[in-house]
């Protein structure tokens, strides 16, 4: 078990290292650099060369990559080209906000998704299944900005229950985000719940028609004992990986929702940095998102291993 864990961890670190190289190369390949972003129209001739010398951009790419990578390991992500502040603290604030948004959505969405998935799976083809599954398909297919706009219109403009946008700044304390965070959380929950629920539903249906559930029935086990002891521990395993992907998505990519609600999270900041041509920040955010994906998937694999005895047994059982 420990060996597998260390093995996976090393693989994860290798993946992040590779991704960092790709990110660096991609940013490098873009026309312009931090100096052109800082100097903007003045970026030519002597001033540009001076700036590059100052920031060390005239050195070879490999040296700069090494410097950036080692800095990132120590938590130093460089200086923003836009306002000359350390990126670590700028991104840190946004990361904290994104974590708050993701945490609230997950806390609401995962239990809801599991409950609905199990319910619809057990009540396959009955009215409740058809109704919930249909709503889920709608929630999945309607783009977030449409849902968000409709929710703002209904709950904020029409009913006036919650604010339509978040007015707190990036560095304000977490409590400042309530109640503005309510609508974005609802939008995100709708999308993710539908995904997870549909996976759980099909997995529950598979397991409920498996030989071992039939066997448990014929052993005389009561229905709820079959569901909780024999079916669910096996049926929920596939959900772990879907949840992991959802968490990764929530941490890095909810650009649209953050933008619509003016929520100062990572995605929002990423868009702003791109339009400001603040390449060091773009580079840093890309690295953080990649690391989050790898970390979450690693955690999911380990969880799956904990709950699935078949993954735990090593091949080596020879005499």
């Amino acid at each position, binding site marked *: 078990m420990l060996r597998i864990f260390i093995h996976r961890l090393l693989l994860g670190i290798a993946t992040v290292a590779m991704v960092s190289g790709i990110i660096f190369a991609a940013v490098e390949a873009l026309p312009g650099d931090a100096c052109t972003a800082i100097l903007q129209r003045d970026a030519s001739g002597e001033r540009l060369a001076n700036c590059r010398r100052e920031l060390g951009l005239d050195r070879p790419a490999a040296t700069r990559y090494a410097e950036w990578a080692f800095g990132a390991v120590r938590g130093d992500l460089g200086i923003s080209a836009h306002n000359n502040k350390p990126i670590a603290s700028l991104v840190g604030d946004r990361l904290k906000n994104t974590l708050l948004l993701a945490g609230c959505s997950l806390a609401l969405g995962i239990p809801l998704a599991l409950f609905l998935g199990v319910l619809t799976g057990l009540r396959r083809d009955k009215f409740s299944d058809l109704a919930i599954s249909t709503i889920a398909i709608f929630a999945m297919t309607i783009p977030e900005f449409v849902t968000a706009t409709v929710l703002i219109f209904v709950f904020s403009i029409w009913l006036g229950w919650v604010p339509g946008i978040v007015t707190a700044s990036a560095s304000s304390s977490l409590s400042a985000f309530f109640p503005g965070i309510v609508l974005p959380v609802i939008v995100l929950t709708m999308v993710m719940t539908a995904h997870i629920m549909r996976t759980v539903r099909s997995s529950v249906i598979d397991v409920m*028609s498996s030989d071992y559930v039939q066997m448990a029935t014929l*052993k005389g086990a009561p229905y709820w004992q079959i569901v909780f002891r024999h079916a669910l521990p*096996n049926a929920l395993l596939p959900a772990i990986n879907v949840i992991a992907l959802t968490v990764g998505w929530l941490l890095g990519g909810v650009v649209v929702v953050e933008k619509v609600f003016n929520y100062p999270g990572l995605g929002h900041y990423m868009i702003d940095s791109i339009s400001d041509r603040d390449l060091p920040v773009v580079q840093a955010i890309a690295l953080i998102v990649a690391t989050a994906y790898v970390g979450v998937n690693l955690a999911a694999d380990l969880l799956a291993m904990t709950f699935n005895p078949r993954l735990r047994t090593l091949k080596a*059982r020879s005499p």
Partner: protein
Amino acid sequence: MTGDILIDVQNLSIGFTGRSGKLLPVLRNIDLGVRRGETVGIVGESGSGKSTLALAMMGYLKHGLRVISGRSLFDGRDLLTMPSCELQRIRGGKIALIPQNSGQSLSPNLRVGAQLTEALALHGKLALSAFPARVIQLLQQVRLPDPEVIASRYPHELSGGQQQRVAIAMALAGEPEALLLDEPTTGLDVTTQAHILELLSDIAVRSDKAMVYVSHDLGAIARVCSRVVVMYAGEIVLDGDATTVLTNPGHPYARGLLASIPRLGNPSLPIALEGRPPPPGDAGPGCSFVDRCAIAESPCRAERPGLQPLLAGGRVRCRLTERAESIPTKRDGKPASAGGSFGEPLVRLSNLAISYARQSLVDQLLGRKPQGVPTVDRVDIEIRQGEVIGLVGESGSGKSTILKAVAGLVGPASGEIAYDKSGALPATVEQRRPEQLREIQLIFQNPDESLNPRHTIEQILAQPLQLYFGLSGDALRERSIAILERVRLGAHYLDRLPSQLSGGEKQRVAIARAFAAKPRLVLCDEVTSALDVSVQAAVLDLLDQLRRDSSTTYVFVAHDLAVVRALSDRVAVLYQGRLCEIGPTSAVYSRPCHPYTEALISAVLEPDPGARPVLMAEDIMELSPPAKGCPFQRRCHRKVGPICESTTPPQRDAGAGHVIHCHIPIGELTSAQTVSALGNAVRPHVQ
């Protein structure tokens, strides 16, 4: 010892709603009573409704099925209308199921001990504190070594035989009055199967439980049951005592079924039962077997015969039962083997070793060879032009691996495969010349997986014809039709999809595809094991005919020893990827010399109520072949001594190309045998 009727199925019909909205019956008017202390076998081919019937005896219907008419009584009460809380007490407590494929019937997330404890808790006949001891006792009762260790294992950590024993222990946990066994040994190796059946027949003899044993395997039924019910197309067609049903049955279907079973003691090909049963809802007004019946008359088509009692006991659903005896149940002895003389050597495997061990990244970088014992090792076989060589052995014996190496799907780790006069064959398909690829064709076990479900039969057959012969247009079509006719299918099959064919027809298409390439060597990998016996006989007959017509060479891999006997000229016995014995089929079967061959052949079940398999080899789980000595040393009943563990066994020559790899001197091997000669004689009746 039989008592009152415990299980009583009355006029039961069960069906499902078809796509057309019509109710299609899978069981039709079943009447069957099982008494306490009685063991009833239910036989039938796939789709005959035997498993549906067994589950209905527990009041269980699979998703989509519903009762059309009738009742399923247990101890006088109808289980099909019983509220579920009462059903829960009866299931497992009064009547328990031993399922097919226990590997999938045990919950993968619970340890064996926990699952047994659950069964004990559900039917509360014991105090909580007595559970652990009872779990151990149950595991001992099904003869599992180290019950404490087994109880702490997860199901996937056990071998197939051990899983089956755990399932039996679980069924016994509730101390039921009746046991239902649904194909409990299907999918197990012969030696394991013989052990499980011995355990089951012990339970049958010692207790006064009512037992219902469902199987397609008449051999297994013969071993355990005193009474046999034959099902066909959802009906009971014959019901009688085991000896009569298995030797001289009064129904044409049962007689045809018996004739289609290959037997160890008979070197000839089994007789095929042509045609197939009507699909649910498609049986005409008459007898459901009429289209395949050799003695059918026109009244048989008009009216469905009733299940009539027979004077000698039992029941039969046939108008002409007196005349059924004219249908033979044994073969006349048309030998499959082409005789002793064959052409030049076509393939020579010399000192072949194959390893599945994957090189790790580090090993690859350092250029190291993969570690570990190879899956197949030290195999020397010479195959001559026009002969059929059978490879037999249990799962893990490496027989399919050798086929894959000859086909070029896995490369040998060492040794070589010489082909014809061209020398060593290149290791993999990519390196072989088109001519070599054409001449060596492979037929797979399961046509459902080897035929592309989206290609029509025409497209499937066109591939080799276009690829190897560049045919197109009318010539292509003509050749496709000619090939289909050779496998006894007509031109009207060309635009069908595989899903529109029966299992036997699909396998014929797979055979046609192989023969379309005009191969010299055909590799058959368990080609009949997914088929029903009556269909299997037809496929064997076809393979034999094709080989006579075109003097093709076959390498025939099968786990069923009787099937191999029917078709092969020579047979090689493999254990854990090592050769144990090789020789002419008649010599190896009539005089098995290697202890493993002896154990294997003596464990085979024959559909003969008098025969009883002899259990010689321990049924332990082999994890990997030993690095040194004889591969069979750990299970051998004739182990010589430490030499078996340290030294590779020498080749002993028994004459006529019969070679045995064993430390026992040749004189002792051929004379002092535990099992008497099989030949055409009767098998030993050990009582």
